[in-house]
């Protein structure tokens, strides 16, 4: 859940934690507990896609000449930064 999304209170939420809308998990963003944020240096990235292969959350987005990170789902595990042969991904602390 991203912080900007308005969370409903107990008076408005459906009873019994029922999710009334099918497929609504697409709306649920899971990246909000990330402590470190991967930053991709486009200059260094050679688009080898090792990070894309290793990312356990499919949060690496392929672009034509480099990769980007989908921060809605990235948990900040740092595997991409560890695996990058060009050291093009840097982990920086999230600012609250």
């Amino acid at each position, binding site marked *: *859940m991203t912080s900007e999304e308005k*969370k*409903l*209170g*107990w008076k408005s*939420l*459906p*009873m*019994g*934690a*029922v*999710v*009334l809308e*099918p497929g*609504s998990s697409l709306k649920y963003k899971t990246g909000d507990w990330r402590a470190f944020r991967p930053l991709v240096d486009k200059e260094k990235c050679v688009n080898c896609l090792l990070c894309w292969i290793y990312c356990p959350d499919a949060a690496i987005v392929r672009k034509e000449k480099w990769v980007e990170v989908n921060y809605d789902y990235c948990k900040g595990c740092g595997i991409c930064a560890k695996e990058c042969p060009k050291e093009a991904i840097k982990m920086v602390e999230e600012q609250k």
Partner: protein
Amino acid sequence: MTIVGMTGDEAVAYAVKQSKVDIVAAYPITPQTIMVERFSKYVADGEAQTEYVCVESEHSALSACVGASLTGARVFTATASQGLALMHEMLYIASGLRCPIVMGVANRALSAPINIHGDHSDMMASRDCGWVQVYVENAQEAYDWTIQAFKLAEDRDVQLPVSVNLDGFILSHSMEGVDVLEDEAVSRFLRLRKPLFRLDPDKPITVGALCLPDYYFEFKRQQFEAMQNVSRVLENVNKQYRSFTGRNYGVLETFEMEDAEAAIICLGSTAGTARAVAQKLREQGKKVGVIKLWLYRPFPTEAIIAATKHLKALAVLDRAVSFGAPYGALCSDVVSVLHTMEERPKIFNVVYGLGGRDIQPSDIELVFNEALETAKTGVVKGETVFLGVRD
């Protein structure tokens, strides 16, 4: 009026049959067995249009009930003692998913040592599980409360599971005359369940989704509110039931409490013995009374405060022991609701009848005399008394 000779368990099974339950999933355990035996016979003989699901354990029984209830069905199960203990995690799931399941519990002691007889240890160990909990005094009440339980559980402001508790053997296996309603009258009192939501392939919903720290708390707050609504909804349920039967139910029943100086508060069949003894002591001019709780969860705080206002001493009878706790479960609750009163009765706790140990009128008389003495002196001799245990 039709009087039928039935045991407490049979009275529950008969009420369930008349309540037109869609699904029953249950596993037999003494002293609840007769409930499921009788009910499976109704199904086998074509007297009940209910799907009876045979399961391999109580955990599975309540799991099946949760699933069935979520489809919008009216669901019943029954258990006791170890069976209720095995259901424990599913108890919270049933209430958390807001399944209005009704469960008959023939209260029985918990192992070890193994024992099959009546006490309240089983349900008291699950008192915070989010189920509405009703205790009955006799087979008639077991019948009446089972029918009312469905209406209460399925009310949209409640939507919670309800357990109807009857003392193992003392009520479950004792035959009494039960005044039963016609099937048609039960159908008029208890309409078809109208669920707020249900599992339906044409309109998919998700139940049981993960709720992390950002949402879980809100759903517990909802459950708390639903419990708060019970007293109000129950008043209406009792009123409607009265129009069919003439029988008066509520959150509790009092006997000679108006001018009582000393009283006993208890659950279940013991209330009958207490009333008989109170009657005898009244004839001797002793000002004693009895409070019997029908509703244990939610705890009828206001009604208890109102009933104990002019009281000087109150003996709280617990048929279960809370190891390491300041008092037994019922006494802890009574003490905590009365602490807000400026002038409150002196309270002592009587733990009795564990493992089915019989409680005689002479035992109750001892308690009343102790309470009268406490009322006179204002001194509590023993905070917790173990009644009928050998030293």
